[in-house]
């Protein structure tokens, strides 16, 4: 019998040997996988500058002999933990920034307590972010601050920058930040005002449970979790793959609950009325129109983002009032664009190149 075209029969014993070795490794590593706890994340040395309810402000210890004048405040998304930006040494965005000479602070969130269900958009935009900016100014001794917002942290940063448009924000960087919520098609359908009674939900559960947030993210790609586990089993012999999988899996499932009132406003003002896009958003009675933002702005979007599709993010740069503005589209998904091997090669150097000259 002839071999099919392209199949080298002499390689078959070698391949069988390799597959048998991998099968043995899978069994050994599979046991190790369940017996170990995975890599330690978020371990770049830092000091906690403030803890107030759900708000946590960290300052990372500088790693360069000389730093840029303008400090950076990173505003994390309210649904997830900030350690996605500080995975492990060599794969940490924070470490990268520190080594490149930036002074880095992070506003990270913890789960709001049941009695914090009343926290609303105004608490986040008019209290927590300005409070952290003040503390960064005080700690660094500098007036100017660069703000970086990831996903919904970007939305909060835009709202903050719109309202406090006379300073002290010097530069704004948004990662995968939606402004046109009609274009988040599935989320929009899940929260269809004809069928989704947000008042009833918030009034009955208080804070929106993390399981509900996680399910809604997973529903966007319902097969991916199962397929991810198949890939994990196939690659369990590969330590680097397993390490990367565990880091992302741990972070992905470490979802935070959302404060009830904050969720109510997000649903009504953003998902239903699309007020950020329409320029009619208000927070605590104060107009928040992104056209009022005049500082230099960089928006990084991901080509294969299934959470914030490009159509939901693409109007940001057109709508802000800044003259120094740039959008950069990078290969990757919602998370891989900011963390992991892709980000190291693409986003991080781009950001350093853009921000360095605006940080003096």
């Amino acid at each position, binding site marked *: 019998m002839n071999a099919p075209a392209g199949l080298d029969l002499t390689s078959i014993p070698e391949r069988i040997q390799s597959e048998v070795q991998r099968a043995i490794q899978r069994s050994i590593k599979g046991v190790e996988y369940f017996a170990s706890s995975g890599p330690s994340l978020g371990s770049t040395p830092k000091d906690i*500058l403030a803890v107030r309810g759900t708000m946590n402000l960290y300052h990372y210890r500088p790693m360069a002999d000389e730093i840029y004048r303008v400090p950076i405040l990173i505003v994390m998304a309210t649904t997830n933990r900030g350690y996605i930006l500080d995975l492990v040494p060599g794969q940490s965005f924070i470490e990268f920034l520190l080594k490149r000479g930036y002074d880095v602070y992070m506003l990270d969130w913890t789960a709001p307590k049941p009695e914090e269900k009343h926290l609303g958009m105004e608490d986040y935009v008019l209290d927590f972010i300005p409070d952290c900016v003040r503390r960064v100014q005080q700690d660094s001794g500098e007036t100017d601050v660069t703000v970086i917002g990831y996903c919904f942290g970007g939305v909060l940063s835009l709202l903050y920058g719109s309202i406090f448009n006379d300073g002290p924000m010097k530069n704004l960087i948004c990662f995968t930040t939606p402004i046109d919520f009609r274009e988040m098609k599935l989320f929009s359908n899940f929260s269809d005002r004809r069928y989704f009674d947000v008042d009833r939900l918030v009034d009955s559960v208080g804070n929106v449970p993390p399981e509900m947030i996680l399910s809604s993210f997973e529903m966007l790609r319902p*097969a991916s979790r199962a397929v991810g586990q198949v890939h994990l089993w196939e690659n369990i012999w590969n330590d680097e793959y397993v390490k990367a999988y565990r880091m992302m899996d741990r972070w992905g499932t470490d979802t935070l609950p959302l404060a009830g009132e904050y969720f109510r406003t997000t649903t009504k003002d953003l998902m239903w009325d699309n007020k950020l896009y329409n320029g009619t958003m208000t927070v605590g009675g104060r107009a928040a129109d992104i056209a009022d933002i005049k500082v230099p702005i960089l928006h990084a979007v991901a080509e294969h983002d299934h959470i914030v599709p490009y159509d939901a993010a693409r109007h940001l740069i057109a709508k802000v009032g800044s003259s120094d503005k740039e959008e950069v589209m990078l290969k990757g998904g919602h998370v891989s664009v900011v963390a992991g091997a892709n980000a190291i090669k693409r986003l991080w150097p781009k950001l350093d190149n853009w921000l360095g000259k605006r940080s003096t």
Partner: protein
Amino acid sequence: MADKGNDPAAMWQSMIGEMEKGFNSFANQAMASPEFSKVMNQAGGVTAGAQKQLGEMMEKYLVSMNLPSREQMVSMAERIQGIEGQLNEIKAMLHQIHHNSLAPEGGHGTSRPPRTKRPPSEGEQK
């Protein structure tokens, strides 16, 4: 070596990838319909209501069994969190004191590197 077209492992990977894409795309289409939203939210509403009622019943049951309820456990956790928060505040104050003690009068953060860094010139960019 076998080329990718005949490599069983590559074929398997490719098949799994295609299945994933196909299933996700099919599910996304189904979930984009108003009917899906209606059914999902009806089910979600019932679950939230049932959860609330069940929680109230369990609370009564635990009280009758002289066991701590979820609310009491949450309250305990909050007290622990409160203590942790105060420890963090003390830590932050100590950090601030340490920071100030290293700085000259009226100065800021001289224990830290100087804020004099300039961006590398175009030729130096990596």
